[in-house]
């Protein structure tokens, strides 16, 4: 059985943008990981960033500060 947990998921237009976010999160010790885009949502890029919901504000600030464009933010049970 796959255990489903609440998560915030960021989607992107290109792999490059996801990789940029992953690099920054690793640098700053921010938790989260790259996942395949869940079937419940659609995005241009097949890779997405998944984190615990309480990371949302910090991630939004990071994306804005570093001028990384993203497509959408979703709250899902995955």
């Amino acid at each position, binding site marked *: 059985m796959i255990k489903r947990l609440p998560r915030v998921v960021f989607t992107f237009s*290109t792999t490059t*943008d996801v*990789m940029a976010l992953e*690099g920054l999160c690793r640098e700053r010790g921010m938790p989260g990981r790259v996942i*395949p885009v869940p079937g419940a949502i659609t995005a*241009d890029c097949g890779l997405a960033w998944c984190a615990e919901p309480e990371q949302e504000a910090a991630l939004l600030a990071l994306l804005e500060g570093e001028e990384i464009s993203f497509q959408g933010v979703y709250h899902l049970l995955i």
Partner: protein
Amino acid sequence: MIYFDNAATTLQKPEAVVRAVQHALGSFGNPGRGVHGAAMEAARTVYDTRCALAELFHGEGPSRIAFTANATEGLNIAIKGILNPGDHVITTALEHNSVLRPLYELERLGVALTILPADDRGRVRYADFEAAIRGNTRAIVCTHGSNLTGNLVDMERLGAITKAHGLLLVVDASQTAGVFPIDVQESGIDILCFTGHKSLLGPQGTGGLYVREGVTVRPLLSGGSGILSHSKTHPAQMPTALEAGTLNAHGLAGLNAGVRFLLETGLDTLREKSLDLMWAFYAGVRQIPGVTVYGDFSRRNRCPIVSLNVRDYDSSQVSDALFSQYGIATRPGAHCAPLLHDALGTGNQGAVRFSFSHHNTIEEINMAISAIGEIAEEE
């Protein structure tokens, strides 16, 4: 072997390059096509390589760097992706066939082409660029450094011209990327095409192009992208727009290590050593009776290349003698730069090209001077 064919491919790579490729071959999946460990390791390396090149060329960011198999592919993408029938484009007699042949192809499809002449030392006149501009001129496509003579073209001057006239500047940096500092934003370069296996110290099969933000290049290929799988058209977002199909991530791992080596060591240190060797070689061979050296040697800064001929000997014969009798590797023939050979008067003879790297030594230079002296001796 004494290796003086670095303008074709650099032979000695940093140990880190070899290790990176070996590691990649044993651990990389397909970058951008999944999120398992092997795919992500490849994706991280590809992304890091974009970052390294964006830093080296002072581009706006990693998404402006698209990868290709070599500079020829990048130039084809750039040239065919920005020009349309009815446009006019300016290039020079210095160019390699990787610029000339795509332009000739487009000329047959209705693009007007002006090729600016070179003088007998392989120089172009900057005033000629401005004089050639017409109402429908779309771009200047020009090499940064000649692969035959080593002469440089001042990109800042060309950038000022293209900027003043609203043109695109497409630059072939095959011989200069990794040798000279290139600041695409400061120089006004719109598209910079580079190869990985020369002075960027990476493996063959790697290269790419920088595309300035705001410049749209029509892709040459379409297909798998890892994104927008249900769309009938190839994605328009850079860098994916110009990268159909699986990237050469194994090779890019090596290119990344090569570029990181350059960034850490500093281009100036490596270039000054190559130039010292080139100038020592030039000083030695230019005095030898029967030797003709081609190009403009009036300024210290030039690509570390010396092309020459000995008497009326066929350049292939001289190059073969250098290798078979002295173990010195050079390149003879036409160097894929037919119009420049015409300007230099070497259309039939070709030229023997010596191209140097920071790995060469002054002892090797002296041996080569001595070998040329012996070959040039009268019977």
